[in-house]
């Protein structure tokens, strides 16, 4: 079969093709008919609130779960009928830790290398720079149960990259890592992506990571509610965010609603208003009686705003909720007033 050598015939035209994918658990529908394509070499983001169905979708694409209906192809292979072909084309960094904690870091990597059929020379070549990249050079000989959570996470990322997959799935890969490490890892991943033209499928709750994507799909309650480039998504929001602080924010909110017909909402940094053109709105704000502005900031739409627009929730829901709650608690209020 010499004439079928891969390099002479493009193996596939889409890296991922999803068509009407449905997954039910009992009578609960976790994934409710999603469809989209990912181009080879594309960096694709999958954003959605907790429980939206991101991990379930990834599990189906990675052959760990069967779809209830619909179909999907990864690297040109059907995820139900050609599982082995799919498996040898992909890498997966799971949302939860999946290391063997009685093995050392290096043993975990070697185990992975054998499962993916890597040769010894390849392991020798790829493993040391990866270990260095995740900053575990001093730790690879220790058992994983002695690692911190962040170190385990870093080892998992190195493991996902070890076999140079053509399509790499990253399910909240950097959760719990410090900003410095995150930057470091992203630099490496981007570099690797360009060198090996890896297709990447990322879920994340971090906006700066989502910004790196070529395209983003927003998923909510098992459905894709928006899909576009980050810039187009931001443009689709159509409103700027004006945040003001005043002497009495509740009074200001009522006054603004009455006079300017804009519904404000309280947030940790003051009163938040969403308006089509922020700069033109600010002068009107100063003219409104009973508002008494102390400070103003105007912000163009961010991916946070995109997220809120399409899902009605804040992207860092759990996190920011608890922060907001803390800040509006009596003690902090009292502290601020001094």
């Amino acid at each position, binding site marked *: 079969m010499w004439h079928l050598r891969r390099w002479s015939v493009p193996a596939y035209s889409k890296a991922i093709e999803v068509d009407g994918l449905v997954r039910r658990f009992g009578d609960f529908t976790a994934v409710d008919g999603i469809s989209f394509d990912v181009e*080879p070499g594309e960096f694709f983001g999958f954003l959605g609130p907790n429980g939206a169905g991101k991990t379930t979708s990834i599990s189906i694409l*990675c052959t*760990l779960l069967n779809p209830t209906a619909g179909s999907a192809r990864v690297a040109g292979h059907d995820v139900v009928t050609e599982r082995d072909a799919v498996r040898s084309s992909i890498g997966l960094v799971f949302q939860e830790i999946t290391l063997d904690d009685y093995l050392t870091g290096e043993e975990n990597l070697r185990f992975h290398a054998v499962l993916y059929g890597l040769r010894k020379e390849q392991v020798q070549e790829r493993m040391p720079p990866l270990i260095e990249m995740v900053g575990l050079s001093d730790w690879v000989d220790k058992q994983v149960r002695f690692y911190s959570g962040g170190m385990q996470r870093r080892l998992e990322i190195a493991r996902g990259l070890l076999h140079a997959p053509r399509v790499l799935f990253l399910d909240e890969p950097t959760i719990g890592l410090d900003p410095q490490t995150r930057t470091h890892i992203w630099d490496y991943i981007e570099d690797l992506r360009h060198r090996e033209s890896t297709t990447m499928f990322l879920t994340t709750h971090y906006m700066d990571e989502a910004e790196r994507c070529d395209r983003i799909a927003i998923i909510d309650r098992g459905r894709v509610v928006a899909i576009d480039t980050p810039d187009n998504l931001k443009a689709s929001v159509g409103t700027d965010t004006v945040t003001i602080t005043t002497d009495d924010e509740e009074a200001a909110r009522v006054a603004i609603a009455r006079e300017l017909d804009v519904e404000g909402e309280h947030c940790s940094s003051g009163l938040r208003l969403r308006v089509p053109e922020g700069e033109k709105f600010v002068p009107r704000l100063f003219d409104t009686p009973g508002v008494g502005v102390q400070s103003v900031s105007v912000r163009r739409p961010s991916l946070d705003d995109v997220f809120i627009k399409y899902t009605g929730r804040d992207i860092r829901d759990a996190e920011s909720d608890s922060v907001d709650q803390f800040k509006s608690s009596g003690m902090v209020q009292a502290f601020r007033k001094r």
Partner: protein
Amino acid sequence: MTTAEAADTAGATAASAASSSGRDGRFVHNARTVYMVWYREIIRFLRSPARIVSGLAQPILFLVVLGAGLNPLVGDSSEGVTYQEFIFPGVLAMSVLFSSLFSAISIVWDREFGFLREMLVAPVSRTGLVLGKAAGGGTVAVMQGVILLVLAPFIGVSLDAFQVLGVFALLLLLAFALVAFGIVLASRMQRMESFQMVMALVVNPMLFLSGALFPLNDLPTWLAFLTRLNPATYGVDAIRRVMIPGAPAVTIFGWPVPIWLDVVIIFTMGVAMLAMSVRSFRKVD
């Protein structure tokens, strides 16, 4: 050329590199997988001394305490064998029974802690994973058994080299069959809590109905019936007859089962269980 096309060409090149020169052939790949899964079991065993000790505690209690305690009460058998010597083969089988099933059931542990998913998402045959697991669990179980075998001289059992070799081979066979059986059980369990249930409903009945602790040939019919259904019975029988030449064979309707049949029964059960466990691993839900 668009970026997508460029990426695709590059991707395809990388793929051909991976399939033609970079990665192992199918057979070597699967063989190395079996070895790696086996190796992992051994490492985990050697790195948890607590598991080694607790795995030996119960067999030693049975052998030393129960054996010595019942010796005067039971008296020697017609072949001049003390009760302690009588249960020694049974205790070996018991130790293999416990550690085989424990090893197999660690799959449930792997499932809870996610490592199973790392294995299942890899491009390896499910048969390779199951074989590696069965071989690893079996080796660990036999290591436990061999540690006990070293105690033989202390309780007055002397074995020649052929007997030791024979016992070793039988322990290996029994361990393999029991691990395969345990993997089938484990593939049906979702949580580690069911482990207690397996101990109570599977392991202990298999021990008590195996002839490890008492002879099987003068039992009430219902009890005789249950013991003959238990595959462990044939393991204990074979090991005992290798260790104690002239010990009476287990009988079915009065017919003494030859050792080779013991071996065939255990082996058949092992292969059947292995096939079942491979099937349940292939299933994706």
